[in-house]
C-alpha cells in the first residue's frame, strides 16, 4: 500500500539512508584514496547522483514497481523487480555487516553478545519492515537532527585542535583515480534504490531527495576534511572510523562525560538500524510487487532471514565485511542496482491501448 510522506520525511529518509555509511566508513576510504583531499571525492558522486535523481524523479508519477509492470508487462516486469530485489538484498547483507562492524570496532564485545546484538538489529529491521515506510520515515525524521547535531558537535569541538595547513586542497588529479571511484559507486547505488519506496507522488520527491543527498554528502566531506585537519593525513588514513577517532582522541569533554564518542556511537548505531529497516522494506516492497499473492509478513521475514544469514556468513570479522563489499557488492550487486531502476524508468512506454490490455 502506498503512503503519503512529507518532503521533510523524504529528506530524512534519503539522508538517513546514506549518512551512517558516509560519516562512518566512507571518509576512511576517501582519505586512503586521495590523502588530505579525500573530502573532494564526494563532489563528483554528488553531481552524478543528483543528475540521476533528476532524471528519475522529474518524469514519473508512479513507483518503480508500477513502472516496471506497465512498461515491460507482467512477466518481464516481475523478473526485473525480482532481480532488483536480489541486488538490494545483497546490499542489505553489507549493511548488516556494517552494523556489526560498527559494534565491533566501537565497543569491546565477545562473539556471543556481538551476535546477539546483530540479531537484535535484524529483528528491528523485520519490525521496521512490518510497520512500513511511514513509521521508518517518522523515526528517521526524529533521529536525523540528533545524528547531525552530534556529528557537528564532534567536528566543531575538535577543530580548534586542528592544523589548518591541511585545510586547503592541493589538487584534483586524484578524483579520476580508480580507487576514488569506489565512493561514487556506493553513493549512486544508495541513491537509485530509493525509487523502490512505496510512496505516493514520487514526482514531488526531486528536491527532498536532492536535499537529503546534499546533506549526507556535505557531512561526509566535512567529516573527511575535519579528520585530516585534526588528526593529520597519516593518522586519518589509518583510522577505520575517522570521526570516531577524532571524538575519542581529541575531545575530552570532562565533567560528566569523559569522552564524546560515547554519544556519537549510539546515534550512528541507531542510524544504521534505521538504514537496515529502509533496505529491508525496499526488498519486501519489490518482492510484494513481483509476487503479489504472497503474504507480506512471509516476505518481510524471508528478506530479513536471508539477509541476516548471508551477513553471518561473512561475519564477524571486519575483513569479511570488506570482502563482501569488494567481492560481492561491487561486481554483482551494484551494476544491477544502478542499471535496473534507470532501465525501468527510461524504457519507452507502450501505447496506452496495449498497456491497458496487458497490465496486470
Amino acid at each position, binding site marked *: 500500500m502506498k503512503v503519503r510522506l512529507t518532503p521533510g520525511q523524504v529528506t530524512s529518509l534519503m539522508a538517513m539512508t546514506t549518512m551512517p555509511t558516509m560519516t562512518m566508513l566512507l571518509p576512511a576510504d576517501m582519505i586512503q584514496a586521495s590523502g588530505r583531499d579525500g573530502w573532494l571525492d564526494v563532489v563528483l558522486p554528488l553531481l552524478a547522483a543528483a543528475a540521476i535523481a533528476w532524471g528519475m524523479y522529474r518524469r514519473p508519477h508512479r513507483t518503480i514497481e508500477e513502472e516496471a509492470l506497465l512498461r515491460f508487462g507482467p512477466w518481464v516486469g516481475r523478473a526485473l523487480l525480482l532481480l532488483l530485489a536480489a541486488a538490494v538484498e545483497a546490499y542489505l547483507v553489507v549493511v548488516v555487516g556494517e552494523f556489526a562492524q560498527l559494534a565491533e570496532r566501537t*565497543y569491546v564485545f565477545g562473539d556471543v553478545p556481538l551476535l546477539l*546484538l546483530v540479531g537484535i538489529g535484524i529483528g528491528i529491521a523485520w519490525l521496521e519492515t512490518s510497520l512500513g515506510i511511514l513509521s521508518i520515515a*517518522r523515526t528517521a525524521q*526524529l533521529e536525523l537532527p540528533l545524528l547531525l547535531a552530534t556529528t557537528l558537535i564532534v567536528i566543531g569541538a575538535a577543530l580548534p585542535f586542528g592544523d589548518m595547513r591541511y585545510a586547503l586542497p592541493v589538487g584534483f588529479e586524484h578524483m579520476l583515480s580508480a580507487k576514488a571511484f569506489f565512493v561514487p559507486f556506493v553513493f549512486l547505488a544508495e541513491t537509485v534504490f530509493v525509487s523502490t519506496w512505496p510512496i505516493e507522488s514520487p514526482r514531488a520527491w526531486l528536491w527532498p531527495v536532492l536535499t537529503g543527498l546534499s546533506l549526507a554528502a556535505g557531512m561526509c566531506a566535512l567529516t573527511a576534511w575535519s579528520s585530516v585537519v585534526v588528526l593529520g593525513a597519516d593518522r586519518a588514513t589509518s583510522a577505520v572510523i575517522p570521526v570516531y577517532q577524532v571524538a575519542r582522541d581529541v575531545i575530552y569533554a570532562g565533567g560528566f562525560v569523559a569522552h564524546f564518542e560515547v554519544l556519537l556511537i549510539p546515534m550512528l548505531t541507531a542510524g544504521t538500524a534505521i538504514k537496515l529497516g529502509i533496505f529491508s522494506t525496499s526488498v519486501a516492497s519489490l518482492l510484494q510487487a513481483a509476487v503479489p499473492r504472497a503474504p507480506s509478513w512471509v516476505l518481510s521475514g524471508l528478506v530479513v532471514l536471508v539477509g541476516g544469514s548471508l551477513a553471518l556468513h561473512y561475519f564477524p570479522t571486519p575483513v569479511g565485511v570488506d570482502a563482501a563489499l569488494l567481492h560481492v557488492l561491487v561486481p554483482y550487486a551494484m551494476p544491477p542496482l544502478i542499471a535496473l531502476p534507470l532501465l525501468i524508468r527510461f524504457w519507452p512506454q507502450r501505447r496506452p491501448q496495449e498497456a491497458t490490455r496487458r497490465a496486470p
Partner: protein
Amino acid sequence: MGATGVARAIASFVDPSAPLPADATEAAAALESALGSPPDLDCCQLQQGDVLWCLLHLDSLTDPQLIQSDVLSPLSQGRMPATTRNAQVRTYGEALAAVLEGKLVALGGQQAFFVDVVKRPTRSPSEPDAEQVTTGPHRGFVENVDQNLGLIRMNLRDARLRVERHTLRAATDVEVFLIYIAGLAPAETVSRLRRGILETRTSMAITDTSTLSEIFAPLQVVPLLQSTERPDRVAGALYEGRCAMMLEGSPTVLLAPTVLLQLLQPVDDYYNRPQIASFRRTVRTIALILSVTLSALYTAAATINCELLPAPLFISISQARQNVPFPAAVEIFLMEGIIEIVQEAGLRVPGSLGQTASILGAVVVGQSAVASGIISAPTVVLSSLGFLASLAIPDLNASIGFRILRFPLIVISAVFGLAGLALGSMLIGLHLASMDSFGVSYLSPLTPFSWRAFVKSVLRLPLLRRSRRAEPGLDTG
C-alpha cells in the same frame, strides 16, 4: 435508548421485541416478572376516570419529588404528564430499558410512555486531585453528564458547539457523548470517533471513560487519548479542533486526537506567565527523557561503557559499590522495584497512612539498604531522580507508561551497554512513530515536522501572538 443489552438480558423471560399488550396490568406483571420482582421496584396503580394506570419505576434510581410533580399530579388532575422528555414505549425491551435507566414507565388506556424522573446523585464540582493548579479555576467534572455539559458550556459560549449522543454496545449499553465545535474539528476526526463508538461491540462492562480509552487503543503503553477532569481544559481543546468524549457516571473526559507533547502541557501553563510556562515545559521535556533513560544510562556506564564517566566520578561510584554484592544491573533493578512497591503501597492505603508508607519506604528502606550494603548510594540517587522525573510528567497514565518502558531499556543496556541503549531507544521511537491518534501522528509536530506548531508546543507563546485557532491536535490550551 440502550435497548440491546437489556434485550439480551431478559430474552429468557419475555420476548423483548414483542409489543406491549393492551392490558396494562398484564404488561406490568410481565415486566415485573422479567425484572425478578426486585425489592426496589415500585409498581403502583392509579385509577383516573376510566383508565387504570400502572406506573413502574425503580425506587433506587428515581426522584420521588419528580414523580410527584411530573407524573402523579398531572394524572390525578386528568392531564397527561407534560414533560418534554416523555416518549412512547412500544415493546417489552424498550419498557425494560427505560425502567433500568431510572425512568418511570406509565401503562394504561392503550398508551405506554416513559417519563424521565432519574435521580442523579450529584456533588459539587471540586478540583480534581490529579490536575490541581495554583492559579486558575478550581472546578472539576462530576459524575453527572448534564452537569458536566453545563460546566463546558459555561467555559465555551459558542453556538457551534455540537453534542452528539451515541449508544455504545457493551455488556450494559452506555451512552457516549461526542462533543466538538462544528467547523473547527476536522470532519474526518469526528467521523472516525463516531464510527468507533457506533461500531464497537464488546462484552466488557464500561463504567468509566478509562475503559472506553482502552477499547480505542488496546495495545499502546502510553495513552492515545488524553483524559482530563477539568472543564477549562476541555473547552480549550475544543477550540483547538479536538473532540471530547463523555460518559454518564464518569467525571473523566477523553480528548482526541492526542499527541505526545500535549501530555506534557498541564492546563496551568495558560494561567502562568509565558516565560515561566515555557521554562517549565522545557523542564518537563527533559524530565520525560530522563525518566526513561537515566537508569539505563547508569546501567550502561557502570557495567560496559565505563569510559563514559570521568575518572573521579568512576572511582567514586566504584568505591560506593565495592561492598555491594550484586552487579550494577541487578542493583538498579532492585532499587527500581523498591520504588514501584513503595509507590503502589502509597496509592493503595488512604491519606495520611499513604504518606507514612511513602516516608517509611523512601527513608527507612532506602537508607537501610545503603547502610547494609545491599544497594549503593549512587544507585539510590539516580533511581530516585528518574522516579521524580517521571512524576514531573503531568499526565498520570503517560507517566506510568514511560516508567514501564525503562525496564526493558535497563535490561538491554545491561547486556549491550550504550549500543543496547541506542537500539532500545530506537525501538521506543519506532513504537511511538507507528502510532496515530485518530489520523494524527502521535509524534507531531516533531514528525511530520511543522516549525510553527513545534515552537508553539515547546514554548508557551504570549496569548496575543497566538492565532485564534491552533492546528488540530497539535497544541493544548
